[in-house]
């Protein structure tokens, strides 16, 4: 079959779908990855075929201009739908209004959506897989009659928030019974105009997809009424050199701790909430070996590098983490997921969006400790790290989560499920599906 995968142009949001794309391709399916031109290099570096659509939406300019305010609305805000008093009406309304204006409608701007639709009309995909904020994928699928699903590589806090928000709005008082989006539902309104431009009415499926491919272990999945196909997270670190250095082939003599602040803050305007210098001060003097993956700009912020610290620009995380006793990181989804499937206890900074829930739940399950923003101090970090190194229960709990993650099917095992779901969901009267046979058709 023909699978169109789409993600807005940000590595951190694209990386999570790469192993599934590999699996589909290896099963003989045609795979195209559409994004703004800025992602073309990352797509081809992953060995996939790129379709550049639209133009640079100026995400960095937005973050520079209003990022602080948008982030401040969400900082330290629990997104746990079960936490009492957290998802307040004002918070949800501001979330919908701000995120739609500054992000959803930006990374899916009209040129990008229309270009993607044009490509899909021409190429006629059977299935569109979309990064959960790349709603352009849903639009392209609906226009062409393709089946479509979201690919989740972080806990889907979005969907319970969306559902709480819609419940709070209730029916549109002025327009009861109609299928249009509520006038105060910014995301729905915007999708309504976007679908309307292509002659289609709005329905909530453009927000939810027909199903989700969910790579988050079940202990971290929030309640959702969207059907999910569980899939094991297979680490892919992105378009960076994946080379095993010589030192990594020698087993460590002391407990090894990995310190990483991820890649997004290195390559975008998105701020990093963890001061690098503070992290290294916190580990100074501990009887451990530290591998800190820091970029040049991050290193420039260091005032002092303790003796027990090895600075490296980049090392494949899935090669490094199996040698580590613990990992300290910024809370990003890729790092968190890789540590989880490698069974390494983690200290995750959780200050915004789903990073808070990942870190909080991880701690609840005993597999790590949450570093909330008010605890980002030398003492706050050091005391947590000492506990992780001294209490074996963390390693045991991390191993349990690893087992849980491994119980989900691999991307290769998910491919036949997607074939079946695609046959069920796409519009009728289309070309034959199937692995290798479909590749003959195309």
């Amino acid at each position, binding site marked *: 079959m023909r699978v169109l995968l789409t993600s807005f142009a940000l590595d951190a949001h694209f990386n999570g779908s790469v192993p599934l794309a590999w699996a589909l391709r290896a099963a003989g399916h045609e795979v195209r990855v559409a994004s703004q031109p800025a992602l073309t290099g990352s797509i081809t570096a992953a060995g996939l075929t790129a379709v550049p659509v639209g133009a640079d939406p*100026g995400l960095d*300019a*937005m973050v*520079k*201009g*209003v990022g602080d*305010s*948008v982030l*401040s*609305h969400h900082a330290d805000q629990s997104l746990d739908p079960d936490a009492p008093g957290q998802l307040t*009406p*004002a918070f949800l*309304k*501001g979330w919908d*209004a*701000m995120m*739609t*204006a*500054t992000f959803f*409608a930006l990374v899916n701007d*009209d040129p990008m959506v229309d270009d993607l639709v044009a490509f899909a009309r021409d190429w006629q995909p059977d299935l569109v897989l979309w990064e959960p904020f790349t709603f352009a994928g849903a639009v392209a699928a609906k226009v062409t009659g393709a089946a479509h699903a979201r690919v989740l590589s972080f806990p889907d806090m979005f969907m319970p928030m969306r559902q709480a928000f819609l419940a709070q709005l209730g029916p549109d008082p*002025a*327009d009861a019974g109609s299928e249009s989006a509520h*006038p*105060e539902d*910014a995301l729905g*309104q*915007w999708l*309504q*105009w*976007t679908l*309307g*431009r292509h002659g289609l009415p709005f329905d909530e499926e453009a927000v939810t997809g027909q199903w989700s491919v969910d790579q988050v272990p079940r202990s971290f999945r929030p309640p959702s009424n969207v059907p999910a196909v569980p899939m094991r997270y297979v680490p892919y670190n992105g378009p960076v050199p994946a080379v095993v250095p010589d030192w990594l082939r020698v087993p460590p003599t002391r407990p090894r701790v990995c310190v990483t602040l991820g890649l997004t803050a290195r390559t975008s305007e998105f701020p990093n909430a963890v001061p690098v210098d503070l992290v290294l001060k916190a580990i100074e003097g501990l009887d451990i070996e530290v591998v800190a993956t820091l970029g040049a700009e991050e290193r420039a912020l260091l005032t002092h590098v303790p003796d027990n610290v090895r600075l490296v620009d980049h090392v494949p995380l899935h090669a490094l983490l199996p040698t580590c006793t613990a990992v300290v990181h910024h809370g990003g989804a890729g790092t968190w997921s890789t540590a989880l499937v490698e069974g390494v206890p983690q200290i995750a900074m959780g200050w915004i969006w789903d990073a808070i829930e990942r870190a909080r739940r991880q701690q609840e399950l005993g597999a790590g400790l949450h570093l909330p923003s008010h605890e980002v101090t030398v003492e706050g970090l050091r005391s947590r790290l000492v506990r992780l190194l001294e209490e074996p229960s963390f390693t045991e709990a991390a191993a349990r989560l690893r087992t849980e993650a491994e119980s989900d099917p691999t991307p290769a095992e998910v491919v036949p499920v997607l074939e079946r779901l695609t046959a069920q969901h796409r519009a009728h009267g289309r070309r034959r599906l199937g692995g290798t046979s479909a590749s003959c058709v195309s």
Partner: protein
Amino acid sequence: MTDTETDETTPAAPEQDRQTQQSDSELGRHLLTARGFHWIYGTSGDPYALTLRAESDDPVVLARRIREAETPLWQSAAGAWVTGRHAVAAEVLADPRLSLRHADLPGLQRHVFSDAWSNPLLCHIIPLDRAFLHASGADHARWERSAAPVLGAGAADGHRKHAERVHQETADRLGATFDLMADYSRPAATEAAAALLGVPDAQRDRFAHTCAALGVALDAALCPQPLAVTRRLTEAVEDVRALVADLVAARQSEPGDDLFSTVLRADASGSSGASAAEDALAVGVLTAAVGVEFAAGLINNAVEALLAHPRQWALLGENPELAAGAVEETLRHAPPVRLESRIAAEDLTLAGQDIPAGAQVVVHVGAAGRDPAVFLAPDHFDLTRPVGQGQLALSGPHTSLFGAFARLQAETAVRTLRERHPQLAPADGVRRRMRSPVLGGVLRYTLTTSPTAAA
């Protein structure tokens, strides 16, 4: 609705075409982005941004915070220079260098958001030039002058008998429980406006429908409305223009002593060169787009204040002449137009601040009306408060043009309601529209004429 254009010579006509041709995606995204900005600038607690956000925050509390800011005139995160101090407000409202429009932007006051996330222009959310809402000071002065024989304070007594009849008829139709806005204030104000413009009976329903859609106009200029509301508004603007243009044309061939004939007769051939017919069109459109909602809002706010103060409601019963005082006090305590927005025509210094040309200056009239530097016990509503200096609620070009009209309507309303329904009481709290930072438009205000029966 295709009868949108009757005046072929109006220079703004091609602009209007462009506006209606904006796709849902273009206009919708613009409104959504502006709304996003109001949310964004409100995250720091900025009381002006929160006022424009117009969500659950108490507007009176925000007004106080605007007034009590450290400097009398301060710059909001939303870009505008804002004041809630009476002295500065009076200065701004009287300053001819501050206008409703950009001096260097002829035609529509349209601001397209580019990728400049750091400096969006939020002073004219949508261009409402077709409704004459962003007119120059000179235009406004001329309209007010030429309409004065009918709209001015001196002419109010001549309208009183008609107003009394309209209000009595409206009151006669009320049930035991009714909605003040939908069943009384708006119908009465609409009827009065229709009479003023000479709208024929056959067009009254159309006129009422159009006025209702125009009710958000003053809000829409500063606070993005939902797309559907915005579309209804811009359609209503075209519809009322067509309706008024027909009426004006009829008066041109058959003059009388009505509003349009009066404006047409006035010597409008002054410096601007605008035609008398265009002036009559402007006055007529503004009557529908501003006059009706302004009068209805004043009625609502006056009734709300009186019912919240039963002793004063009783006082009014003893002395119906106090209706004028009740309305005057309402204008100060809860003005129906809360915000007045201006653009600096040149670099100027206001309250010690350097304001560059093109900057937006906003007066919070509601805040200024409760400035303790001017008013004793300013939060207290007192219909016997001596009428003194300092009424700012009628000092804007729109509120000034329709001040006498709104006053007469509101005075007649409170007298009529007090006389007919001495037991009048709220059945529920006032529900105001969201996204209504300027007007605080009433969505629902259920009253009962005999509270014991309702209870």
